[in-house]
């Protein structure tokens, strides 16, 4: 009695997981990059300060927000270019959401 193993299934899992992760992380990172380009660099202080990580204090967060605003003011981009970058950023985030929902739909409808 021979044991048959479907090796292709493992390749399928790897390919599907890799493509899914690349799309989500890649587009999310592009979205953040475009958000910074549009002059709206996100400064997100941790929801709760823990002692396990390198956290920023409220003072540091304020300083970071100030630096982001200063960098945005010095941006050589025109208003139109900034608006385009913002649209691109939200487009990238939306693409991430669609990719996740499409992945879940594939699993449910299988």
């Amino acid at each position, binding site marked *: 009695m021979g044991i048959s193993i479907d090796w292709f*299934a493992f390749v399928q899992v790897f390919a599907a997981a890799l493509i899914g992760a690349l799309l989500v*992380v890649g587009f999310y990172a592009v979205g953040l990059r475009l958000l910074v380009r549009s002059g709206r660099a996100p400064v997100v202080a941790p*929801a709760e300060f823990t002692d396990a990580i390198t956290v920023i204090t409220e003072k540091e967060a304020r300083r970071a927000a100030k630096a982001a605003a200063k960098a945005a003011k010095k941006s050589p981009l025109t208003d139109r270019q900034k608006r385009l970058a913002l649209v691109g950023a939200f487009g990238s985030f939306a693409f991430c959401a669609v990719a996740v929902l499409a992945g879940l739909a594939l699993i449910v409808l299988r």
Partner: protein
Amino acid sequence: METAALIVVLVIALALFFDFTNGFHDTANAMATPIATGALKPKVAVLLAASLNLVGAFLSTEVSKTISHGIVREDQIEPLAFLPIIFAGLIGAITWNMLTWLLGLPSSSSHALFGGLIGATLVGASAAAIDFGMVLSKVVLPALIAPFTAGVIAFLVTRLAYAITRRYDNKPDGRDGFRWGQIFTSSLVALAHGTNDAQKTMGVITLALIMAGWQNSAHADPQLWVILACALTIALGTYMGGWRIIRTLGKGLTDVKPAQGFSAETSTAATILASSALGFALSTTQVASGSVIGSGLGRRGSKVRWRTVGRIAVGWVLTLPASAAVGAFAALLVVWLGPAGIVVDAVLAVAIIVGMFWRSRRNQVDSSNAMSEVADSGLAVKVKRNPPPTRRQRAILREERARQKAERAEERARQRAKERAKDAAPRTPRDASKER
């Protein structure tokens, strides 16, 4: 028939208890990184994890089919006589989980379940009753390959996330924004956990129902009440287990950056969801651990602590045979003592449950027993506080140094020229009188 009904009730109760402990133990897998990076408040994280585990349990039934219709060859067993064997297998799984928990050893609830069932079937039925091809392709190989797959993917996407958001002009890079993203990716991990882990219990209950003749063996899908019971139990376990994390607030986790946490969670969720769709029964703990190690390595200047990796890997490899041995012993009691063996097993199960409850009451909660193996995996990677510069950063530094050197040389030349001009200037009568 009454005995069979009683055993089915016992199997369902024990399987649901196993489901509860699974959720209780694994809340940390989904929520350790968002809590550690401060993306979510612990209370919100736990509530989110519990709700999404509940939803995830309804998404797919492929893993459940693997257990109820794959591992055991139904044509090689006597259905009613197999019911106590399933019970013995569950005893094996829970006992091994209890032991590893008490000794602080890394383990996997899922593999303990498979080990217990396989060991009990080997002793209580025969080797022919186990479909080794299915065990190898749906349990053993995925167990070995999935953490590696998740690690490789996490490594690649971490690199990608850092490469896309890196800035060379010291202006804000926006990486803080990954904290927002972590709310969604950790939710996805909780959803994936519900999809894979709740189904394992559904599979065991469905197998017991088929053996008792309460469900048609041609119909592999779990019944709606089974799905609902397993979904609610795993969600409740997740919610109750979360309070232990709230008390510890992520102590013991290594320095996890938001971009790294986001990448690790995406890789974990993608691997578990893709595997669940194909019916691979994975250990979510192992996949999450693989992702944490991979994403840690994706950061510049990181190194692997092979000793820690080895300790974790030994725990993983041991789980399947060790729980199989305990399951086999429980089945041996049934074979030797008959109905009395089932009673002994039931007493053993009650003792374990009471022991777990008592231990959890007196055991002080700290980083070693609340943050699960995922935290241990974080320690397997050593990340430098000041990572070495990238190739482009080195080039920029070289250019900067060359520019400064040229500026200094230019300044020196200008000063020399100035001095020379001063020396060469014609002497006035006033200068001569000054010299005198």
